[in-house]
């Protein structure tokens, strides 16, 4: 399946756009998404160890299964406030 992932801050800057489409096996987990992004988007490889993923606006565990149509975002360490 193809999954869109929203990008912010340094991740958006690295890739030059605010969203990427990642090719994934069906029912892939967040952990597999991490690996797929590292392979398909080399400019993001070295930030992946530090980021969390959000699925449908909540932080997701590595074991969370991704389904077509879910809203996924790559969340670098936050610095609001």
């Amino acid at each position, binding site marked *: 399946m193809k999954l869109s992932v929203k990008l*912010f801050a340094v991740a958006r800057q690295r890739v030059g756009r605010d969203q990427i489409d990642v090719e994934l096996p069906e029912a892939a987990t967040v952990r597999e998404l991490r690996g797929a992004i590292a392979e398909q988007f080399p400019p993001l490889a070295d930030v992946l160890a530090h980021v969390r993923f959000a699925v449908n*606006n909540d932080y997701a565990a590595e074991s969370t299964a991704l389904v077509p149509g879910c809203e996924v975002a790559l969340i670098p360490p936050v610095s609001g*406030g």
Partner: protein
Amino acid sequence: MIQLTNHPIDPGAVLDQVASHDAGAVLLFLGTTRELTNGRRTVSLDYECYPAMAEKKLTELEAEARTRWPLTGCHVVHRLGHLELGEASIAIAVSSPHRVAAFAAGQWLIDTIKQVVPIWKQENWADGTSEWVHPGMTKP
């Protein structure tokens, strides 16, 4: 209530949101743009967020603060976009019957917002360079 805004924060308007005759304490926290960080000079900041999730997380944190402490009012405003030195990036106002709860809730809210709400700042340094701030992330 929570609010994300591209406009300057009016602290008086934020305080008005938590006014209550049941309150014996009103606390206002403002986070402001600082000029020096580890000796480097900042000229301005830019904030961006993941709007849907930032609103959701702020709303959850307000609800949790109201569960943990007996608050009569709680209002959080976060600024987005371009900020000059001295401008407020965040305002947190809480009111409660007694001061201990207001101080505790205000401290907890700013500490927790800084950990979980998907908002990011970019430092625009005096030397003309800019960088996104990501605590704990090693620089390339």
